[in-house]
């Protein structure tokens, strides 16, 4: 345990976040996400919700201000209601001074992006579409 480091962040995740460079991505994935299939570097945080994880990650990690969308979610199937968790993602980002809208990526493209991500954090989130990709910035 360290001062000012959110308690839910495991040591390896803090290490990976420190190793990440500008433009590297981190995926916060829900409980149903095929994290171990798409990524070789998975941090398992099954006891934590995706929004809490987002809050904790944003305590430490700046977002990229040079890309159009530094925070992207998986596009929902057309006709489905707008997932409620997006509202919580959006507010969490806003509270961390990220004021843009969420970006949207189709499901299979999202998996491809997750493959390229530096790390995938698999949470215990069960709310539909509880996945988000974050692009690391350089304004620490």
């Amino acid at each position, binding site marked *: 345990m360290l001062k000012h480091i959110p308690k839910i962040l495991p040591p390896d995740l803090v290490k990976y976040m420190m190793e990440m460079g500008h433009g590297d991505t981190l995926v916060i994935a829900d409980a149903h996400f095929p994290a171990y299939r798409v990524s070789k570097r998975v941090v398992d945080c099954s006891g934590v919700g995706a929004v809490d994880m987002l809050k904790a990650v944003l305590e430490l990690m700046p977002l990229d201000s040079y890309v159009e969308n530094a925070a992207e979610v998986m596009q929902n199937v057309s006709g489905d209601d707008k997932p409620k968790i997006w509202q919580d993602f959006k507010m969490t980002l806003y*509270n961390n001074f990220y*004021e843009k809208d969420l970006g949207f990526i189709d499901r299979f493209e999202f998996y491809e992006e997750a493959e390229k991500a530096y790390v995938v954090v698999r949470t215990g989130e069960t709310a539909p579409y509880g996945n988000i990709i974050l692009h690391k910035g350089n304004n620490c």
Partner: protein
Amino acid sequence: MNYKNLFLRQSYLDSYDTYRLSLKEAGCGVLWDYVILTASNESQASAYRQQIDYRLDRGVLPRSTHYAVLPDFEGKRVGSGGATLGVLRYIRQRETSFSGLRILVIHSGGDSKRVPQYSACGKLFSPVPRELPDGRRSTLFDEFIIAMSGVPARLESGMLVLSGDVLLLFNPLQIDFFGKGAAALSIKENVMTGKDHGVFLRDDSGNVGRFLHKQTVENLTLAGAVDHSGKVNIDTGAVIMSSEMLSDLYSLVDTDEGFSKYVNDTVRLSFYADFVYPLSADATLEDFYNEKPEGELNGELLAARKVLWGILHKYRMKLICMSPASFLHFGTSVELLELVTDHIDDYKFLDWKSKVCSNRNIGNFACYNSFIDDGAVIGENSYIEDSDICDGVTVGKNCIISGSTLKNISVPDGMIVHTLKIKNGKFVTRVLGLSDNPKENMWLGKKLNTSLWEAPLFSEYDTPEEAAEATISGKTGEYSLKSSFNEADSSQIILWSDKLHDKISVERFLDFIDDLCPVEKLTAKELTPRVVRLLTEYAETAEFSEKIRIYYYLARLLGNDELHARCFDTICSCVTESAMEGISYNPHFKIAKDSVITHLPVRVNWGGGWSDTPPYCIEHGGMVLNAAVTLDGQLPIVITLKKLQENKIVLCSTDNGSYAEFSDISALQNCHDPHDAFALHKAALIACGVIPYKENISVEEICKRLGGGFSLNTEVLNIPKGSGLGTSSILAGACVKGLFEFLGTDISENELYNRVLCMEQIMSTGGGWQDQVGGLAAGIKMVWAAAGLKQQVCCEQIAITEETLNALEERFCLIYTGQRRLARNLLREVVGKYIGANEDALDVLYQIQRIAVLMRFELEHGNIDGFCRLLNDHWEQSKRLDSGCTNTCIDQIFSSIEDLIDGKMICGAGGGGFLQVVLKPDVTKQQLRARLFDVFADSGVAVYDCEFYRG
């Protein structure tokens, strides 16, 4: 407050309660199924959607309601009637019928030409001068949502249509509509007011018989619209339509052909002229044909009216009279300015005020969500909204500044300044005179070739301050009011407003701290996560006093333990850092004596205790009066230092039987845990420079340099723990004193105190300096230190005569309560009260120092009775500061001996340990003992013999 206002205020509060309930997840009560806004074009619709999403994201709109914003069909001006048909079609695309649906429609499609600062956000989202109970600044839309939240329960089904620039103040309980036709919401007003508005004439069945629009008083009276008290039923523009009527209306547009026929800019149906008019009982088709249209009176419109007559005239419109009720029209810039300045007191009953969410609360001007630097001058009756006004700016009288950043500029009297961010990322400031009408051809006294609304007058700039400065200075360009509105980037409106609000909230919070506003009087409603983040970031580089208060206030208001810890960590580290200044390991020390034994007395505190504790003493200085005493003829604090042949350091404590030999330096340096049996010994070695604080030098090497190893033993004779006599600090003092003697080094009194302070900070005990000085210096002393991070403690024995001292000694007693002081986080509690500007705490900390000085005066004048009175006063003050300093047992001890004593106080922080009393002149200590034994037998309550230690 008159009855009408009282009723309206209560009605508003009731509506707010209903609104709050409607926000609950499960959706309490009956809610609107649909809330639909109409907009004049897609750009305005997009701005409205952003405003609604913003509120949904924050949970301030009921989530089970469906919200939609419908722009005029294909960007054409289809009229309020056409827009209403568009609403019906939208709903029927989602629903099979209107039956059972409760729909709220707010017509909000205007360009707001007469208040052009609201064109981009829409008049519906213009400010209302009220801070909502949840801390948000209000807008017309929020007021609508709150005021209308009680209406759905009063309808079985149907659609309530409102005009977006008229705010109704009423009580929904007065609405009762379960009919088949329509209902008009009307309010009673004096006929003099009625002559400027639409008035309803009621027929015998209680329905609307006729509409009388802007008629003279005489005509209104002749028509029978004026009642016996001279009042008329005013048309508020609010109409309820039943689901049956909605179905009939929808039949006009249930096909694409039908929709094209009735919803277009040629027919341009008006909601009021074309839908509401045919509902009056006495209306005729002929009159209907002549009713003033929203657009032009043409063949298509007349044909449409014929059809509408057939559909609507069979229905009647019930007249619902709401009274007391009121309405407010948001019309022109002049009306707006008058409302927020001159007339604001008329709306005090609704908690409207001239200054909403601003850092400047004085001055004869109005403001709303604006940051105004202290050095900015704002003229009388001006209104600043959503703006950032920097030092050096002068705003004239009767100005409206909206959405602007002003730097180094003077704004002339009567000017409206409004800045917009446009879609290319640049900024356009639009200026006009307060009395300029954008529909006319005049601008700031100049004649224009076209209307002000369309005249190219303003240019774009990279920053808002540049735009404002250049435009106010007279530079012109290619943008008109209209084109800049069309180009506005509406997504930036909320972001800018929020950024300003963050800045204002931070400033207001810091002002509260500076003004010593007690934390208990504040609420957390402005502390959004963004504001908290900004404040904690600011605190990192703030100076000591501000920094600890930011952490403390935030911790208290948010219930955040981490910030609480950060506050006290900051105090501890600042004091430690300062105390450690100039203290370092001295490799040249040599042991000068084979052994040293130091005995010290304990202290009794008389006046000013707690004023010596950081951060109070750092910020204000502290002053205490105390006395050194022996117990049972003994000096109870003893430390023994002995030189050893082996190169090792031995620490022991006779009291708890602890003994340890140290050969590892890191074990000796680890002294921050106050529960460590040797924390005090280790801190003494560091504070005296015998061992290094952090440097890695072996114990063997240290001992070699000293000329041998040594042992340090501490002992407290016959005093129970938690006595309140300052034993642990005096023990620290004894260690420092003894160590310097052991090393053959002279040390000044002040240096001695400083080293002990340093020890206490190293041990993280965080107390003040009075205890150690109380034991280190003999006699009765005044001890003080001036304000400053580095406390320079001064001590002076008071000039008491031997005769007075002996007389006081004769009467002075210490009583042990039989209880060890309760373990509680007293220091944080009391210090927290001080940091949090608790009014009692601030007063007590001041008063007790005065008492200390007065005690000295009385003692130096031989007035023991006067001293006793002050001691009693102090006891009362101590209880104000910390109610836990006494308890039932202490109260009972004092109460059982009340007739034997003249003065009473606790020792130290109280809550157990020792009590001190001054007996009445003719009472003996034996009598005191007998009385206490009578009551408390051998439960541990005991009188100790004590004498003042004269040195």
